[in-house]
């Protein structure tokens, strides 16, 4: 099975994020960048599929600046076979522009399966995976929480509000991965050393027209300080009253 995993370089969610000088982007100084956590599930799933089949190839595709090679190498250290960097000075905020570049790369690749994380933690757009499927004319199941592939038939479970939805399609297909799908492995030390020797092909990204820009970024409002309404049983009526009339959660 030939599997493509599309990954994104994103700021570490543990980093302290400051808004940059233009007010529409972040200040990257001192920020650590990581492999998008949802993409880790996609990489892990691809590796498990390859291991189970005992054959196949896992190709990691990223769009972004040169520094995204480091992100690709994390996936190579986990065990992927080779990487492709679609080079762009920056990752445009327009998901369709990115999807067009990825689709152009994937179209003639002969992939049985194309995996994405269900979203990137920097923009929360949930867009690129499903757009790529549409551009390639392939079936797409998003937010896959459980997956079975028998022969060429895909059965996937999605966690939806109040229940589980089971979807089915045929390969080739595009799937976007949710976090209950698997437990991503750590890049082992031997894997990190081996990743240095694995090839990464770098080519210019054929981005689509960028028709969307981020106008402004603002930090979330500071949380108001909590209030202690009293202690023990005596405080309960007042607490209930406030939850009802002030917080309006009851």
């Amino acid at each position: 099975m030939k599997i493509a995993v599309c990954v994104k370089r994103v700021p570490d969610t543990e980093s302290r994020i400051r808004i940059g000088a233009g007010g529409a982007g972040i200040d990257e100084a001192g920020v650590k960048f990581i492999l998008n956590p949802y993409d880790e599930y996609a990489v892990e799933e691809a590796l498990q599929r390859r291991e189970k089949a005992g054959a196949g190839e896992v190709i990691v595709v990223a769009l972004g600046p040169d520094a995204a090679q480091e992100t690709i190498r994390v996936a190579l250290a986990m065990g992927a076979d080779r990487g492709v960097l679609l080079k762009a000075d920056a990752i445009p905020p327009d998901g369709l522009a990115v999807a067009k570049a990825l689709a152009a790369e994937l179209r003639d690749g002969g992939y049985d399966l194309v995996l994405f994380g269900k979203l990137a933690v920097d923009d929360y757009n949930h867009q690129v995976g499903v757009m790529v499927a549409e551009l390639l004319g392939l079936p797409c199941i998003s937010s896959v929480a459980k997956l079975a592939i028998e022969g060429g038939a895909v059965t996937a479970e999605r966690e939806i509000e109040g229940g589980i939805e089971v979807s089915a399609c045929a390969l080739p297909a595009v799937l976007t991965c949710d976090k209950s799908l698997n437990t991503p492995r750590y890049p082992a030390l031997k894997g990190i050393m081996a990743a240095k020797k694995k090839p990464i092909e770098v080519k210019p990204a054929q981005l689509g027209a960028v028709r969307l820009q981020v106008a402004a970024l603002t930090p979330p409002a500071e949380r108001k300080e909590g209030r202690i309404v009293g202690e023990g049983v005596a405080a309960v009526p007042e607490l209930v009253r406030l939850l009802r009339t002030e917080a309006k959660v009851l």
Partner: protein
Amino acid sequence: MAPRFTGVDFYGIDGLLSEEERAVRDTVRDWVEEKLLPVINEAYLEGHFPKQLIPQMAELGFFGANLPEEYGCAGLNNVAYGLIMQELERGDSGVRSFASVQGALVMYPIYAFGSEEQRKRYLPKLASGELIGCFGLTEPDFGSNPGGMITTARETSAGWLLNGAKMWITNGSTADVAIVWAKTGAVDDPRSIRGFIVPTDTKGFTAKDQKGKLSLRASDTSELVLQNVEVPKDALLPKSGGLKSPLSCLTQARYGIAWGGVGAAMACYHEALAYAKQRVMFGKPLAGFQLQQARLAEMLSGITQAQLLVLQLGRLKDQGTMTPQQVSLAKRNNVDLACECAREARRLLGANGILIEYSAMRHMANMESVYTYEGTHDMHTLILGEDITGIAAFE
């Protein structure tokens, strides 16, 4: 509780590390956060090594990581190896000690002094955790003066006959193989010291857990007794000869300990800083009081110095120019720093600082052992003194 650890890097030292070095560090850091820290308190209180972690540590490549790939090891450079030790000790010194012993004191001597046959037979199994090793040098009456050892190895027609006792042996009761150092000649001749690979199920070999430890509680520390232990001729490490052989192993282990000191110090600083920001007293956070700021500033200064010190030491080791005296300076400095940071963090945390749910006192107790083992702080002072003046004060 403190937020997730993201490192202490006041001087942009990350920029001096290669991508692989950072990747190795991040793997170990994440593993410590997710797998080690959730189980360490229970292991520490119950006084045992968390053995369930051994297969994961082996699979990720933590054992003998700076030895070559052809023996099943990761083939890392010495800076990456040091970063592993730093991060493990950020979790717990007992777990770092386990990895240090397996890698630097068991795998290293087999690699450095063993025959090709011994390397091939033991190293892959030690790397994969299939075999656990220990290192028997120190004796009940010979700690800082290992050359005085009275354990003997006598050549027989079939092999070697070992007699003696070893003390303070990390992994002693857990080990499948012991690297035992013994005198093959006269008891007053340290040049006759040779190393032997002794399977711990050999008749006459016993290991007894040392009870009552108030430090390194998540580590197995044992006494070994060798009573007419017969091993074949090929148990001898052929290239070992004289006291300098085991001492060169200690240089390897001490190198890792110097990095470990940074890890323990960072753990304490991280915890103290988070606590100081969040704990309110007299109407403002502890972090707003000058006395606590002085504590934090001292810790950060010490950590930054220690980080630069071990990084340069690692670069020297990779160039092949590192001296044992340079390792002494780093071990002495960084472990002392970790002792101070742990104690100051414990104090900053007030009464909470004595609880197991905070790590400061566990590190504080651990570091007292680390201060004393692998060459006491005082011995390293004298090693430096001798190097500076040309006069040995301990002979």
